[in-house]
């Protein structure tokens, strides 16, 4: 009788543990664009429709299947017309829901800022623990071709929850995807 009761409690709990949970916005996209392009006075949207050739090159480098064939890059320009930088939002979908990173690139293709903008109710605490290690700051100054493992190596898996380290890996994957997309799709 007692074991039946335990099963009756455990099975719904196990099922609940595997449910994806609603997505939460950690930072609004417009706020991030405004905040990470402080010198910009004019903003533009570059909407890139991915072609087969570029998709092929992207898929040689990363596991990428576009949900949407259009990738949006938000450009900021200073009052004198000089570019202030570009912001875009690569997303990685996992079994625990989507994770989106807002990546701000300098005009010469270096990461100026990386911020997690979207997670889920379930993953948010893990993401926050991963971010608290300074992971996002370590992406600054990196560019396409750099090894992002350097940034990830600053996260000590033995000092944090297993899922938090997993989220650190997911964030690193999203940044990597972003660098590849920027390199292949964002051309002057």
């Amino acid at each position, binding site marked *: 009788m007692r074991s039946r009761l335990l099963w009756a409690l455990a099975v719904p709990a196990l099922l609940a543990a595997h449910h994806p949970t609603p997505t939460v916005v950690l930072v609004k996209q417009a706020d991030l664009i405004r905040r990470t392009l402080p010198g910009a006075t004019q*903003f533009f949207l570059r*909407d890139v429709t991915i*072609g087969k050739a570029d998709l092929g090159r992207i898929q040689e480098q990363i596991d990428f299947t576009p949900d949407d064939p259009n990738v949006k890059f*938000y450009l900021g320009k200073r009052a004198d017309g000089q570019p202030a930088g570009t912001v875009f939002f690569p997303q990685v979908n996992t079994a625990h829901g989507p994770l989106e990173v807002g990546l701000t690139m300098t005009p010469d293709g270096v990461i100026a800022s990386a911020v997690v903008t979207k997670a889920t109710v379930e993953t948010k605490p893990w993401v926050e623990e991963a971010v608290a290690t300074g992971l996002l700051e370590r992406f600054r100054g990196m560019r396409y071709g750099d090894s992002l493992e350097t940034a990830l190596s600053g996260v000590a898996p033995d000092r944090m929850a297993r899922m938090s380290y997993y989220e650190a890996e997911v964030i690193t994957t999203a940044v990597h995807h972003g660098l590849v997309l920027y390199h292949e799709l964002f051309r002057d």
Partner: protein
Amino acid sequence: MTLYHLREMHRSVKLAALLFLLVLGYAYVFAFLMVKTWAGLTPAEVQATYVPAAATDTMAMPEHSTSAVQPLDLSRVPEMKHTVDTALLIQDSHIHIMIYAIVAALLSLIILGLGWPGWLRDGAIVGAFGFGALDFAGQWLMKAGLPGFAWLTILSGWGMALVYVIVLLGTIRAIVPSQVR
């Protein structure tokens, strides 16, 4: 057939019925705000939440990437649209349909004591159970690729509210002493 009269019940029973309805209404206010925030109140907004997005057809892609640049008003950057995928709809369904059934059963207990004519009593009971079921039927039909059923979900939500208001008014009428009325 008279099952019982709420009017003749002990004061505590009337109090429990009234407080249940008032707190349920309190919850319904937040349910409305939640639906307004996460799903929307128009058929187009509801469809955007539940109808699955068409998968990208890589075979139909152009050979080379193309781009277009346009000025951007940052105040008009669209924020993330909450969508409900199949896994989340399963989760929502198993919680909501069960709660809808419990609420409908409690409403029915009150309805049975309101001394209504049979047609009104049975209609309200069917509405109490039916609108909740139809709400999720509409969501699943949209998930199956039938966006027109957004109307079913919207009307079911208003239907639940209508049943609630009718039962609340009937209950107040039943428990307020007739000389006061």
